[in-house]
Protein backbone atom coordinates (compact mmCIF):
# COMPACT_ATOMS: atom_id res chain seq x y z
CA UNK A 1 0.00 0.00 0.00
CA UNK A 2 1.27 3.39 -0.85
CA UNK A 3 1.82 5.61 2.15
CA UNK A 4 0.27 8.73 0.55
CA UNK A 5 -3.04 7.07 -0.23
CA UNK A 6 -3.21 4.47 2.48
CA UNK A 7 -6.12 5.10 4.78
CA UNK A 8 -6.66 3.82 8.28
CA UNK A 9 -8.21 0.57 7.14
CA UNK A 10 -7.12 -1.54 10.04
CA UNK A 11 -9.62 -2.60 12.67
CA UNK A 12 -12.94 -0.97 13.43
CA UNK A 13 -12.87 2.59 12.21
CA UNK A 14 -16.47 3.64 12.29
CA UNK A 15 -18.62 5.49 14.78
CA UNK A 16 -20.05 3.52 17.68
CA UNK A 17 -23.71 2.65 18.10
CA UNK A 18 -24.41 5.64 20.33
CA UNK A 19 -23.09 8.09 17.76
CA UNK A 20 -25.08 6.43 15.01
CA UNK A 21 -28.31 6.64 16.95
CA UNK A 22 -27.63 10.27 17.85
CA UNK A 23 -27.05 11.08 14.19
CA UNK A 24 -30.28 9.35 13.28
CA UNK A 25 -32.16 11.38 15.89
CA UNK A 26 -30.57 14.55 14.55
CA UNK A 27 -31.66 13.64 11.04
CA UNK A 28 -35.23 13.06 12.15
CA UNK A 29 -35.16 16.32 14.12
CA UNK A 30 -33.87 18.24 11.12
CA UNK A 31 -36.59 16.72 8.97
CA UNK A 32 -39.21 17.86 11.43
CA UNK A 33 -37.66 21.32 11.49
CA UNK A 34 -37.69 21.41 7.69
CA UNK A 35 -41.35 20.47 7.56
CA UNK A 36 -42.16 23.09 10.17
CA UNK A 37 -40.20 25.75 8.33
CA UNK A 38 -41.93 24.95 5.08
CA UNK A 39 -45.29 25.50 6.71
CA UNK A 40 -44.27 29.12 7.25
CA UNK A 41 -44.28 29.87 3.56
CA UNK A 42 -42.38 29.68 0.34
CA UNK A 43 -39.37 31.78 1.36
CA UNK A 44 -38.79 29.89 4.58
CA UNK A 45 -39.15 26.63 2.71
CA UNK A 46 -36.51 27.59 0.17
CA UNK A 47 -34.27 28.74 2.98
CA UNK A 48 -34.71 25.37 4.66
CA UNK A 49 -33.98 23.63 1.37
CA UNK A 50 -30.76 25.53 0.97
CA UNK A 51 -29.48 25.13 4.53
CA UNK A 52 -30.99 22.14 6.33
CA UNK A 53 -30.91 19.71 3.43
CA UNK A 54 -27.15 20.00 2.82
CA UNK A 55 -26.70 19.66 6.56
CA UNK A 56 -28.64 16.41 6.58
CA UNK A 57 -26.72 15.12 3.61
CA UNK A 58 -23.46 16.05 5.31
CA UNK A 59 -24.44 14.08 8.41
CA UNK A 60 -25.09 11.00 6.33
CA UNK A 61 -21.84 11.37 4.43
CA UNK A 62 -19.83 12.12 7.51
CA UNK A 63 -21.06 9.49 9.91
CA UNK A 64 -23.11 6.84 8.13
CA UNK A 65 -20.71 6.73 5.21
CA UNK A 66 -17.67 7.03 7.48
CA UNK A 67 -16.19 9.95 5.63
CA UNK A 68 -15.08 11.38 8.94
CA UNK A 69 -12.81 8.39 9.47
CA UNK A 70 -11.34 8.27 5.96
CA UNK A 71 -8.13 9.79 4.61
CA UNK A 72 -7.90 12.91 2.52
CA UNK A 73 -8.39 11.15 -0.81
CA UNK A 74 -12.03 10.18 -0.44
CA UNK A 75 -12.90 13.57 0.99
CA UNK A 76 -11.19 15.23 -1.95
CA UNK A 77 -13.11 13.03 -4.36
CA UNK A 78 -16.43 14.04 -2.85
CA UNK A 79 -15.45 17.69 -2.90
CA UNK A 80 -14.40 17.52 -6.55
CA UNK A 81 -17.70 15.87 -7.40
CA UNK A 82 -19.84 18.38 -5.59
CA UNK A 83 -17.69 21.21 -6.94
CA UNK A 84 -18.20 19.98 -10.48
CA UNK A 85 -21.92 19.72 -9.96
CA UNK A 86 -21.98 23.22 -8.54
CA UNK A 87 -20.14 24.52 -11.61
CA UNK A 88 -22.65 22.81 -13.87
CA UNK A 89 -25.41 24.54 -11.95
CA UNK A 90 -23.69 27.90 -11.92
CA UNK A 91 -22.95 27.99 -15.60
CA UNK A 92 -26.39 26.77 -16.57
CA UNK A 93 -27.67 29.70 -14.58
CA UNK A 94 -25.37 31.99 -16.55
CA UNK A 95 -27.90 31.33 -19.28
CA UNK A 96 -31.16 30.84 -17.42
CA UNK A 97 -30.88 33.71 -14.97
CA UNK A 98 -30.14 36.32 -17.64
CA UNK A 99 -32.81 35.51 -20.18
Amino acid sequence: MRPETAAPTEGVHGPDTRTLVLVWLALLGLTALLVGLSALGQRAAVLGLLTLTPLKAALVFYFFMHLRYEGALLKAILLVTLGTLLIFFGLTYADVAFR
Partner: protein
Amino acid sequence: MTTLARPLPHTLPSYLEDSPRRGLAAWLLSTDHKRVAMLYLFSMVSFFFVGVTLGILMRLEQWTLGRTLMSAQTYNALFTVHGVVMIFMFVIPGLPAVFGNFFLPLLIGARDVAFPRLNLASWYFFIVGALLAVLSLFTGKGAPDTGWTFYVPFSLHSGTNVTLAVFAAFVMGWSSILTGINFITTIHRLRAPGMTWHRMPLFCWALYATSWIQLLATPVLGITLILVILERSFGIGIFDPAKGGDPILYQHLFWIYSHPAVYIMILPAMGAISEILPTFARRPIFGYKAIAYSSLSIAAFGSLVWAHHMFTSGMSAFGNMIFSLLTMIVAIPSAIKVFNWTATLYKGSIRFSPALLYAVSFVFLFCVGGLTGVMQGALAINQHVHDTYFIVGHFHYVMFGGTGFAFFAALLYWFPKMFGRMYDRKGAYLSWFPLFVGFNLLYFTMLVLGYMGQPRRYYDHLPGYHTGHLVATVGSWFLAAGLLLLFGNFVRALFKGEKAGDNPWGGVTLEWKVPSPPPVENFEETPVVTGPPYAFEGEAQP
Protein backbone atom coordinates in the same frame (compact mmCIF):
# COMPACT_ATOMS: atom_id res chain seq x y z
CA MET B 1 11.66 4.91 -15.74
CA THR B 2 12.57 4.99 -15.35
CA THR B 3 15.67 3.83 -13.86
CA LEU B 4 15.25 0.41 -12.28
CA ALA B 5 16.99 -0.74 -9.17
CA ARG B 6 18.09 -3.77 -11.23
CA PRO B 7 17.19 -5.35 -14.57
CA LEU B 8 14.17 -7.62 -14.76
CA PRO B 9 14.42 -11.35 -15.55
CA HIS B 10 12.90 -12.67 -18.82
CA THR B 11 11.82 -16.28 -18.57
CA LEU B 12 8.02 -16.51 -18.84
CA PRO B 13 6.01 -17.25 -22.01
CA SER B 14 4.16 -14.30 -23.61
CA TYR B 15 0.55 -13.49 -22.86
CA LEU B 16 -0.35 -14.57 -26.38
CA GLU B 17 0.75 -18.13 -25.71
CA ASP B 18 -0.14 -18.50 -22.07
CA SER B 19 -3.80 -19.06 -21.30
CA PRO B 20 -5.69 -21.62 -19.24
CA ARG B 21 -8.46 -21.55 -21.86
CA ARG B 22 -8.46 -22.45 -25.51
CA GLY B 23 -9.86 -20.95 -28.67
CA LEU B 24 -12.27 -18.07 -28.52
CA ALA B 25 -12.90 -18.50 -24.80
CA ALA B 26 -9.26 -17.64 -24.15
CA TRP B 27 -10.15 -14.19 -25.41
CA LEU B 28 -13.78 -13.68 -24.50
CA LEU B 29 -13.36 -14.82 -20.88
CA SER B 30 -9.86 -13.61 -20.13
CA THR B 31 -9.48 -10.83 -17.62
CA ASP B 32 -5.85 -10.20 -18.52
CA HIS B 33 -5.70 -6.50 -19.31
CA LYS B 34 -3.65 -7.18 -22.42
CA ARG B 35 -6.18 -9.57 -23.84
CA VAL B 36 -9.03 -7.19 -23.03
CA ALA B 37 -7.09 -4.50 -24.86
CA MET B 38 -6.91 -6.80 -27.88
CA LEU B 39 -10.67 -7.35 -27.75
CA TYR B 40 -11.11 -3.60 -27.86
CA LEU B 41 -8.54 -3.16 -30.61
CA PHE B 42 -10.16 -5.58 -32.98
CA SER B 43 -13.76 -4.64 -32.32
CA MET B 44 -12.94 -0.96 -32.57
CA VAL B 45 -10.95 -1.16 -35.77
CA SER B 46 -13.87 -3.06 -37.29
CA PHE B 47 -16.29 -0.31 -36.29
CA PHE B 48 -13.82 2.25 -37.56
CA PHE B 49 -13.96 0.66 -40.99
CA VAL B 50 -17.74 0.67 -40.89
CA GLY B 51 -17.71 4.38 -40.05
CA VAL B 52 -15.12 5.14 -42.65
CA THR B 53 -17.13 3.37 -45.34
CA LEU B 54 -20.16 5.47 -44.44
CA GLY B 55 -17.94 8.57 -44.72
CA ILE B 56 -16.86 7.58 -48.21
CA LEU B 57 -20.49 6.99 -49.19
CA MET B 58 -21.44 10.47 -48.00
CA ARG B 59 -18.67 11.96 -50.08
CA LEU B 60 -19.89 10.03 -53.12
CA GLU B 61 -23.39 11.37 -52.62
CA GLN B 62 -22.01 14.90 -52.91
CA TRP B 63 -20.37 14.03 -56.23
CA THR B 64 -23.29 15.41 -58.24
CA LEU B 65 -26.06 17.88 -57.62
CA GLY B 66 -29.32 16.28 -56.64
CA ARG B 67 -29.52 12.57 -56.16
CA THR B 68 -26.38 10.56 -56.82
CA LEU B 69 -26.73 7.27 -54.97
CA MET B 70 -29.34 7.48 -52.28
CA SER B 71 -32.41 9.26 -50.97
CA ALA B 72 -32.28 12.17 -48.55
CA GLN B 73 -33.55 9.94 -45.76
CA THR B 74 -30.71 7.49 -46.35
CA TYR B 75 -28.17 10.29 -46.33
CA ASN B 76 -29.49 11.60 -43.03
CA ALA B 77 -29.22 8.12 -41.59
CA LEU B 78 -25.68 7.86 -42.94
CA PHE B 79 -24.24 10.88 -41.20
CA THR B 80 -26.05 10.01 -38.01
CA VAL B 81 -24.69 6.50 -37.93
CA HIS B 82 -21.29 7.68 -39.12
CA GLY B 83 -21.18 10.17 -36.25
CA VAL B 84 -22.44 7.71 -33.63
CA VAL B 85 -20.01 5.00 -34.74
CA MET B 86 -17.04 7.32 -34.91
CA ILE B 87 -17.72 9.09 -31.64
CA PHE B 88 -19.04 6.39 -29.35
CA MET B 89 -17.34 3.38 -30.87
CA PHE B 90 -14.05 4.74 -32.10
CA VAL B 91 -12.62 7.97 -30.71
CA ILE B 92 -14.03 7.86 -27.18
CA PRO B 93 -12.96 4.33 -26.31
CA GLY B 94 -10.07 4.61 -28.81
CA LEU B 95 -6.82 5.23 -27.03
CA PRO B 96 -7.85 4.63 -23.41
CA ALA B 97 -9.48 1.27 -23.97
CA VAL B 98 -6.81 -0.11 -26.28
CA PHE B 99 -3.52 1.46 -25.32
CA GLY B 100 -4.60 2.51 -21.84
CA ASN B 101 -5.65 -1.01 -20.98
CA PHE B 102 -2.58 -2.56 -22.46
CA PHE B 103 0.04 -0.11 -21.23
CA LEU B 104 -1.21 1.58 -18.08
CA PRO B 105 -0.31 -1.39 -15.84
CA LEU B 106 2.95 -1.88 -17.71
CA LEU B 107 3.91 1.77 -17.44
CA ILE B 108 3.38 1.94 -13.69
CA GLY B 109 4.81 -1.49 -12.92
CA ALA B 110 1.57 -3.30 -12.05
CA ARG B 111 0.41 -6.81 -12.88
CA ASP B 112 -3.04 -5.81 -14.03
CA VAL B 113 -5.63 -3.09 -13.51
CA ALA B 114 -7.30 -2.81 -10.11
CA PHE B 115 -10.53 -4.59 -11.07
CA PRO B 116 -9.75 -7.06 -13.87
CA ARG B 117 -13.20 -8.59 -14.00
CA LEU B 118 -14.84 -5.19 -14.15
CA ASN B 119 -12.47 -4.46 -17.01
CA LEU B 120 -13.76 -7.38 -19.02
CA ALA B 121 -17.30 -6.35 -18.11
CA SER B 122 -16.60 -2.92 -19.61
CA TRP B 123 -15.81 -4.53 -22.91
CA TYR B 124 -19.07 -6.44 -22.78
CA PHE B 125 -20.95 -3.22 -22.14
CA PHE B 126 -19.15 -1.74 -25.10
CA ILE B 127 -19.85 -4.58 -27.47
CA VAL B 128 -23.48 -4.96 -26.41
CA GLY B 129 -24.02 -1.24 -26.87
CA ALA B 130 -22.31 -1.34 -30.22
CA LEU B 131 -24.39 -4.28 -31.38
CA LEU B 132 -27.56 -2.51 -30.26
CA ALA B 133 -26.49 0.47 -32.32
CA VAL B 134 -26.02 -1.77 -35.30
CA LEU B 135 -29.38 -3.37 -34.59
CA SER B 136 -31.02 0.05 -34.66
CA LEU B 137 -30.15 0.22 -38.36
CA PHE B 138 -32.21 -2.76 -39.33
CA THR B 139 -35.15 -2.77 -36.96
CA GLY B 140 -38.04 -0.41 -36.35
CA LYS B 141 -38.58 2.22 -38.99
CA GLY B 142 -34.99 2.52 -40.08
CA ALA B 143 -31.78 4.10 -38.90
CA PRO B 144 -31.98 7.30 -36.86
CA ASP B 145 -31.81 10.48 -38.92
CA THR B 146 -31.25 13.15 -36.29
CA GLY B 147 -27.48 13.57 -36.34
CA TRP B 148 -25.36 12.20 -33.52
CA THR B 149 -26.53 15.09 -31.32
CA PHE B 150 -30.15 13.82 -31.15
CA TYR B 151 -31.53 17.34 -30.80
CA VAL B 152 -35.07 17.56 -29.48
CA PRO B 153 -37.82 18.06 -30.54
CA PHE B 154 -36.80 16.54 -33.87
CA SER B 155 -35.53 13.39 -32.15
CA LEU B 156 -38.86 13.14 -30.33
CA HIS B 157 -40.91 13.33 -33.50
CA SER B 158 -38.66 11.38 -35.80
CA GLY B 159 -40.30 8.10 -36.74
CA THR B 160 -36.97 6.36 -37.04
CA ASN B 161 -35.32 4.09 -34.53
CA VAL B 162 -33.99 6.84 -32.26
CA THR B 163 -34.93 5.08 -29.03
CA LEU B 164 -32.74 2.07 -29.66
CA ALA B 165 -29.80 4.13 -30.87
CA VAL B 166 -30.01 6.38 -27.82
CA PHE B 167 -30.18 3.35 -25.57
CA ALA B 168 -27.12 1.93 -27.29
CA ALA B 169 -25.19 5.12 -26.55
CA PHE B 170 -26.35 4.85 -22.94
CA VAL B 171 -24.97 1.34 -22.61
CA MET B 172 -21.66 2.32 -24.18
CA GLY B 173 -21.48 5.20 -21.72
CA TRP B 174 -21.37 2.71 -18.87
CA SER B 175 -18.47 0.97 -20.49
CA SER B 176 -16.63 4.25 -20.50
CA ILE B 177 -17.49 4.99 -16.85
CA LEU B 178 -16.34 1.59 -15.62
CA THR B 179 -13.04 1.93 -17.46
CA GLY B 180 -12.58 5.31 -15.80
CA ILE B 181 -13.21 3.90 -12.32
CA ASN B 182 -10.74 1.15 -13.02
CA PHE B 183 -7.96 3.43 -14.21
CA ILE B 184 -8.24 5.89 -11.35
CA THR B 185 -8.12 3.12 -8.77
CA THR B 186 -5.24 1.48 -10.60
CA ILE B 187 -3.19 4.65 -10.62
CA HIS B 188 -3.86 5.36 -6.98
CA ARG B 189 -3.30 1.86 -5.69
CA LEU B 190 -1.08 -0.18 -7.95
CA ARG B 191 1.99 1.89 -8.75
CA ALA B 192 5.22 -0.07 -8.26
CA PRO B 193 7.46 0.83 -5.34
CA GLY B 194 9.28 4.05 -6.12
CA MET B 195 6.86 5.01 -8.90
CA THR B 196 5.85 8.36 -7.43
CA TRP B 197 3.34 10.61 -9.17
CA HIS B 198 6.10 12.66 -10.75
CA ARG B 199 7.87 9.60 -12.03
CA MET B 200 4.80 8.43 -13.93
CA PRO B 201 5.03 8.55 -17.72
CA LEU B 202 2.87 11.30 -19.17
CA PHE B 203 0.51 8.86 -20.85
CA CYS B 204 -0.59 7.82 -17.34
CA TRP B 205 -1.24 11.42 -16.37
CA ALA B 206 -3.33 11.83 -19.48
CA LEU B 207 -5.31 8.68 -18.69
CA TYR B 208 -5.83 9.86 -15.15
CA ALA B 209 -7.27 13.16 -16.31
CA THR B 210 -9.37 11.40 -18.95
CA SER B 211 -10.80 8.99 -16.42
CA TRP B 212 -11.97 11.84 -14.27
CA ILE B 213 -13.83 13.40 -17.17
CA GLN B 214 -15.40 10.05 -17.94
CA LEU B 215 -16.59 9.78 -14.36
CA LEU B 216 -17.89 13.29 -13.98
CA ALA B 217 -19.44 13.92 -17.37
CA THR B 218 -20.70 10.62 -18.75
CA PRO B 219 -23.49 10.16 -16.16
CA VAL B 220 -25.02 13.46 -17.28
CA LEU B 221 -25.23 12.12 -20.81
CA GLY B 222 -26.69 8.93 -19.39
CA ILE B 223 -29.56 10.72 -17.70
CA THR B 224 -30.13 12.95 -20.73
CA LEU B 225 -30.50 9.97 -23.00
CA ILE B 226 -32.83 8.31 -20.49
CA LEU B 227 -34.96 11.44 -20.56
CA VAL B 228 -35.14 11.27 -24.35
CA ILE B 229 -36.26 7.67 -24.14
CA LEU B 230 -38.86 8.49 -21.46
CA GLU B 231 -40.04 11.44 -23.50
CA ARG B 232 -40.45 9.29 -26.58
CA SER B 233 -42.19 6.47 -24.77
CA PHE B 234 -44.29 8.25 -22.14
CA GLY B 235 -44.25 11.91 -23.12
CA ILE B 236 -43.05 13.24 -19.77
CA GLY B 237 -42.82 16.69 -21.30
CA ILE B 238 -39.47 17.94 -20.06
CA PHE B 239 -38.03 18.56 -23.51
CA ASP B 240 -41.16 18.82 -25.63
CA PRO B 241 -42.16 22.48 -26.15
CA ALA B 242 -45.70 21.37 -26.92
CA LYS B 243 -45.96 20.23 -23.30
CA GLY B 244 -44.07 23.12 -21.74
CA GLY B 245 -40.65 21.55 -22.03
CA ASP B 246 -37.57 23.32 -23.29
CA PRO B 247 -35.29 22.16 -26.13
CA ILE B 248 -32.53 24.44 -24.86
CA LEU B 249 -32.42 22.46 -21.63
CA TYR B 250 -31.70 19.38 -23.68
CA GLN B 251 -28.85 21.15 -25.41
CA HIS B 252 -27.34 22.21 -22.10
CA LEU B 253 -27.51 18.69 -20.70
CA PHE B 254 -26.22 17.13 -23.89
CA TRP B 255 -23.20 19.39 -24.18
CA ILE B 256 -22.38 19.25 -20.47
CA TYR B 257 -21.24 15.79 -21.41
CA SER B 258 -20.35 16.13 -25.04
CA HIS B 259 -17.93 18.96 -24.80
CA PRO B 260 -15.87 17.29 -22.06
CA ALA B 261 -16.14 14.20 -24.25
CA VAL B 262 -13.99 15.85 -26.90
CA TYR B 263 -11.26 16.03 -24.28
CA ILE B 264 -11.83 12.37 -23.49
CA MET B 265 -10.92 11.89 -27.12
CA ILE B 266 -7.87 14.11 -27.30
CA LEU B 267 -6.17 13.80 -23.89
CA PRO B 268 -4.97 10.20 -24.25
CA ALA B 269 -3.85 11.08 -27.76
CA MET B 270 -1.76 13.90 -26.35
CA GLY B 271 -0.41 11.48 -23.74
CA ALA B 272 0.69 9.02 -26.41
CA ILE B 273 2.43 11.80 -28.33
CA SER B 274 4.24 12.76 -25.12
CA GLU B 275 5.61 9.20 -24.95
CA ILE B 276 6.67 9.02 -28.57
CA LEU B 277 8.52 12.33 -28.94
CA PRO B 278 11.12 11.81 -26.16
CA THR B 279 11.91 8.29 -27.29
CA PHE B 280 12.86 9.40 -30.78
CA ALA B 281 14.49 12.63 -29.68
CA ARG B 282 16.42 10.60 -27.11
CA ARG B 283 16.07 13.22 -24.44
CA PRO B 284 13.68 13.90 -21.58
CA ILE B 285 10.45 15.66 -22.45
CA PHE B 286 10.57 19.41 -22.18
CA GLY B 287 8.48 20.68 -19.29
CA TYR B 288 7.31 17.41 -17.74
CA LYS B 289 5.25 19.09 -15.05
CA ALA B 290 3.76 21.64 -17.42
CA ILE B 291 2.49 18.81 -19.64
CA ALA B 292 1.28 16.72 -16.73
CA TYR B 293 -0.63 19.53 -15.08
CA SER B 294 -1.98 20.90 -18.34
CA SER B 295 -3.72 17.53 -18.76
CA LEU B 296 -5.45 18.06 -15.45
CA SER B 297 -6.34 21.64 -16.26
CA ILE B 298 -7.77 20.66 -19.64
CA ALA B 299 -9.97 18.21 -17.75
CA ALA B 300 -11.01 20.90 -15.28
CA PHE B 301 -11.55 23.78 -17.71
CA GLY B 302 -13.07 21.45 -20.25
CA SER B 303 -16.18 21.18 -18.12
CA LEU B 304 -16.73 24.94 -18.19
CA VAL B 305 -17.26 25.64 -21.86
CA TRP B 306 -20.04 23.39 -23.10
CA ALA B 307 -22.43 26.06 -24.31
CA HIS B 308 -20.09 27.22 -27.08
CA HIS B 309 -22.11 24.75 -29.14
CA MET B 310 -25.21 26.83 -28.48
CA PHE B 311 -24.26 30.37 -29.38
CA THR B 312 -27.05 30.64 -31.96
CA SER B 313 -29.66 28.80 -29.95
CA GLY B 314 -30.98 31.93 -28.29
CA MET B 315 -29.06 31.61 -25.07
CA SER B 316 -28.90 34.75 -22.94
CA ALA B 317 -26.38 37.44 -23.89
CA PHE B 318 -24.52 36.92 -20.65
CA GLY B 319 -24.35 33.20 -21.24
CA ASN B 320 -22.89 33.75 -24.69
CA MET B 321 -20.29 36.11 -23.31
CA ILE B 322 -19.13 33.93 -20.44
CA PHE B 323 -18.93 30.74 -22.49
CA SER B 324 -16.96 32.41 -25.24
CA LEU B 325 -14.51 33.76 -22.68
CA LEU B 326 -14.06 30.37 -21.04
CA THR B 327 -13.63 28.70 -24.43
CA MET B 328 -10.66 30.92 -25.13
CA ILE B 329 -9.13 30.06 -21.79
CA VAL B 330 -9.42 26.30 -22.28
CA ALA B 331 -7.23 26.63 -25.36
CA ILE B 332 -4.28 27.71 -23.20
CA PRO B 333 -3.31 24.31 -21.77
CA SER B 334 -3.41 22.84 -25.28
CA ALA B 335 -1.14 25.62 -26.45
CA ILE B 336 1.26 24.85 -23.59
CA LYS B 337 1.46 21.25 -24.71
CA VAL B 338 2.11 22.16 -28.32
CA PHE B 339 4.98 24.46 -27.36
CA ASN B 340 6.51 21.89 -25.02
CA TRP B 341 6.36 19.18 -27.67
CA THR B 342 8.11 21.47 -30.11
CA ALA B 343 10.78 22.27 -27.55
CA THR B 344 11.29 18.57 -26.86
CA LEU B 345 12.87 18.21 -30.29
CA TYR B 346 15.35 20.97 -29.46
CA LYS B 347 18.91 19.63 -29.04
CA GLY B 348 17.72 16.06 -29.26
CA SER B 349 19.40 13.40 -31.31
CA ILE B 350 16.50 12.56 -33.51
CA ARG B 351 16.02 9.17 -35.08
CA PHE B 352 13.33 9.25 -37.68
CA SER B 353 10.71 6.54 -37.63
CA PRO B 354 7.15 6.10 -38.86
CA ALA B 355 5.83 6.66 -35.35
CA LEU B 356 7.64 9.99 -35.14
CA LEU B 357 6.38 11.05 -38.56
CA TYR B 358 2.78 10.36 -37.54
CA ALA B 359 3.36 12.08 -34.21
CA VAL B 360 4.58 15.34 -35.73
CA SER B 361 1.75 15.17 -38.27
CA PHE B 362 -0.53 14.94 -35.28
CA VAL B 363 0.92 18.17 -33.90
CA PHE B 364 0.35 19.97 -37.19
CA LEU B 365 -3.16 18.66 -37.78
CA PHE B 366 -4.18 19.21 -34.18
CA CYS B 367 -2.98 22.80 -34.43
CA VAL B 368 -5.11 23.41 -37.51
CA GLY B 369 -8.06 21.83 -35.74
CA GLY B 370 -7.42 23.70 -32.52
CA LEU B 371 -6.97 27.05 -34.20
CA THR B 372 -10.21 26.65 -36.15
CA GLY B 373 -11.75 25.74 -32.80
CA VAL B 374 -10.60 29.06 -31.41
CA MET B 375 -12.17 30.82 -34.39
CA GLN B 376 -15.47 29.14 -33.63
CA GLY B 377 -15.10 30.18 -30.04
CA ALA B 378 -15.06 33.84 -31.06
CA LEU B 379 -18.73 34.78 -31.00
CA ALA B 380 -18.93 36.84 -34.17
CA ILE B 381 -17.28 34.14 -36.26
CA ASN B 382 -19.32 31.40 -34.66
CA GLN B 383 -22.63 32.83 -35.73
CA HIS B 384 -21.46 32.60 -39.31
CA VAL B 385 -19.75 29.21 -39.27
CA HIS B 386 -21.98 27.39 -36.79
CA ASP B 387 -23.58 24.30 -38.34
CA THR B 388 -21.64 24.68 -41.56
CA TYR B 389 -18.91 22.54 -43.09
CA PHE B 390 -16.46 24.74 -41.19
CA ILE B 391 -17.46 22.86 -38.06
CA VAL B 392 -17.23 19.58 -39.93
CA GLY B 393 -13.71 20.53 -41.00
CA HIS B 394 -12.76 21.56 -37.47
CA PHE B 395 -13.81 18.38 -35.82
CA HIS B 396 -12.34 16.10 -38.43
CA TYR B 397 -9.04 17.91 -37.96
CA VAL B 398 -9.08 17.42 -34.20
CA MET B 399 -10.72 14.01 -34.15
CA PHE B 400 -9.24 12.34 -37.19
CA GLY B 401 -6.11 14.47 -37.60
CA GLY B 402 -5.66 14.58 -33.85
CA THR B 403 -6.97 11.46 -32.19
CA GLY B 404 -6.93 9.37 -35.36
CA PHE B 405 -3.34 10.17 -36.27
CA ALA B 406 -2.27 9.74 -32.65
CA PHE B 407 -3.96 6.34 -32.72
CA PHE B 408 -1.94 5.44 -35.80
CA ALA B 409 1.24 6.82 -34.22
CA ALA B 410 0.64 4.87 -31.01
CA LEU B 411 -0.01 1.73 -32.99
CA LEU B 412 3.20 2.22 -34.95
CA TYR B 413 5.08 2.83 -31.71
CA TRP B 414 3.68 0.02 -29.59
CA PHE B 415 2.80 -2.58 -32.23
CA PRO B 416 6.13 -4.43 -31.78
CA LYS B 417 5.55 -4.55 -28.03
CA MET B 418 1.98 -5.75 -28.30
CA PHE B 419 2.56 -8.46 -30.89
CA GLY B 420 6.30 -9.00 -30.83
CA ARG B 421 6.47 -8.40 -34.56
CA MET B 422 7.61 -5.52 -36.72
CA TYR B 423 5.69 -4.03 -39.65
CA ASP B 424 7.31 -2.86 -42.86
CA ARG B 425 8.68 0.58 -42.04
CA LYS B 426 9.05 1.71 -45.66
CA GLY B 427 5.43 0.81 -46.24
CA ALA B 428 4.41 2.85 -43.23
CA TYR B 429 6.23 5.90 -44.63
CA LEU B 430 4.64 5.29 -47.99
CA SER B 431 1.09 5.22 -46.65
CA TRP B 432 1.70 8.55 -44.93
CA PHE B 433 1.69 10.46 -48.23
CA PRO B 434 -1.80 9.62 -49.45
CA LEU B 435 -3.12 9.86 -45.89
CA PHE B 436 -1.70 13.29 -45.22
CA VAL B 437 -2.36 14.77 -48.65
CA GLY B 438 -5.83 13.27 -48.89
CA PHE B 439 -6.65 14.42 -45.41
CA ASN B 440 -5.89 18.05 -46.11
CA LEU B 441 -7.51 17.97 -49.52
CA LEU B 442 -10.68 16.63 -47.96
CA TYR B 443 -10.97 18.60 -44.77
CA PHE B 444 -9.30 21.88 -45.62
CA THR B 445 -11.75 22.14 -48.49
CA MET B 446 -14.51 21.62 -45.99
CA LEU B 447 -13.26 24.59 -43.99
CA VAL B 448 -13.44 26.74 -47.13
CA LEU B 449 -16.87 25.43 -48.08
CA GLY B 450 -18.07 26.18 -44.59
CA TYR B 451 -16.95 29.76 -44.64
CA MET B 452 -18.64 30.12 -48.02
CA GLY B 453 -21.86 29.09 -46.31
CA GLN B 454 -22.39 25.38 -47.01
CA PRO B 455 -24.51 24.11 -44.09
CA ARG B 456 -23.73 20.71 -42.63
CA ARG B 457 -26.01 17.67 -42.79
CA TYR B 458 -27.08 18.71 -46.31
CA TYR B 459 -28.07 15.96 -48.66
CA ASP B 460 -27.88 18.25 -51.65
CA HIS B 461 -25.95 21.43 -52.22
CA LEU B 462 -26.38 24.62 -54.21
CA PRO B 463 -24.42 24.79 -57.46
CA GLY B 464 -21.99 27.39 -56.10
CA TYR B 465 -20.46 24.86 -53.73
CA HIS B 466 -20.03 22.13 -56.28
CA THR B 467 -16.33 22.53 -57.07
CA GLY B 468 -15.44 22.33 -53.40
CA HIS B 469 -17.44 19.17 -52.96
CA LEU B 470 -15.69 17.57 -55.91
CA VAL B 471 -12.25 18.37 -54.48
CA ALA B 472 -13.23 17.00 -51.08
CA THR B 473 -14.55 13.78 -52.56
CA VAL B 474 -11.34 13.23 -54.50
CA GLY B 475 -9.42 13.84 -51.27
CA SER B 476 -11.43 11.13 -49.55
CA TRP B 477 -10.18 8.62 -52.13
CA PHE B 478 -6.55 9.44 -51.37
CA LEU B 479 -7.35 9.08 -47.71
CA ALA B 480 -8.95 5.70 -48.30
CA ALA B 481 -5.94 4.52 -50.25
CA GLY B 482 -3.57 5.57 -47.46
CA LEU B 483 -5.67 3.91 -44.79
CA LEU B 484 -5.87 0.63 -46.69
CA LEU B 485 -2.08 0.68 -47.20
CA LEU B 486 -1.46 1.33 -43.53
CA PHE B 487 -3.78 -1.32 -42.19
CA GLY B 488 -2.73 -3.79 -44.87
CA ASN B 489 0.77 -3.34 -43.55
CA PHE B 490 -0.34 -4.09 -40.00
CA VAL B 491 -2.30 -7.16 -40.99
CA ARG B 492 0.65 -8.49 -42.93
CA ALA B 493 2.95 -7.89 -39.97
CA LEU B 494 0.62 -9.79 -37.65
CA PHE B 495 1.31 -12.97 -39.60
CA LYS B 496 4.52 -12.40 -41.48
CA GLY B 497 6.32 -9.64 -39.60
CA GLU B 498 9.87 -10.31 -38.47
CA LYS B 499 10.54 -10.63 -34.74
CA ALA B 500 10.76 -7.18 -33.25
CA GLY B 501 12.96 -7.65 -30.22
CA ASP B 502 12.16 -6.35 -26.78
CA ASN B 503 13.11 -2.75 -27.34
CA PRO B 504 13.30 -1.79 -31.00
CA TRP B 505 13.17 1.98 -30.41
CA GLY B 506 15.46 2.21 -27.40
CA GLY B 507 12.60 3.37 -25.18
CA VAL B 508 13.26 3.74 -21.48
CA THR B 509 9.84 3.56 -19.85
CA LEU B 510 8.92 0.33 -18.07
CA GLU B 511 7.08 -1.39 -20.91
CA TRP B 512 10.37 -1.66 -22.80
CA LYS B 513 12.05 -3.53 -19.94
CA VAL B 514 9.81 -6.57 -20.33
CA PRO B 515 9.74 -9.05 -23.22
CA SER B 516 7.76 -8.46 -26.41
CA PRO B 517 5.01 -9.55 -26.18
CA PRO B 518 4.92 -9.32 -22.38
CA PRO B 519 4.09 -12.32 -20.18
CA VAL B 520 0.71 -12.58 -18.49
CA GLU B 521 2.11 -11.39 -15.18
CA ASN B 522 3.88 -8.48 -16.91
CA PHE B 523 6.75 -8.42 -14.44
CA GLU B 524 8.35 -11.58 -13.13
CA GLU B 525 9.25 -9.66 -10.04
CA THR B 526 7.94 -6.33 -8.87
CA PRO B 527 10.09 -3.58 -10.36
CA VAL B 528 11.56 -0.98 -8.03
CA VAL B 529 11.72 2.44 -9.64
CA THR B 530 14.47 4.85 -8.75
CA GLY B 531 14.39 7.61 -11.33
CA PRO B 532 12.38 9.88 -13.60
CA PRO B 533 10.50 8.45 -16.60
CA TYR B 534 12.56 9.73 -19.50
CA ALA B 535 16.19 9.34 -18.43
CA PHE B 536 18.13 8.50 -21.57
CA GLU B 537 21.62 9.10 -20.24
CA GLY B 538 23.74 6.00 -20.30
CA GLU B 539 21.08 4.05 -22.24
CA ALA B 540 22.34 2.00 -25.14
CA GLN B 541 21.50 3.44 -28.57
CA PRO B 542 19.29 1.13 -30.64
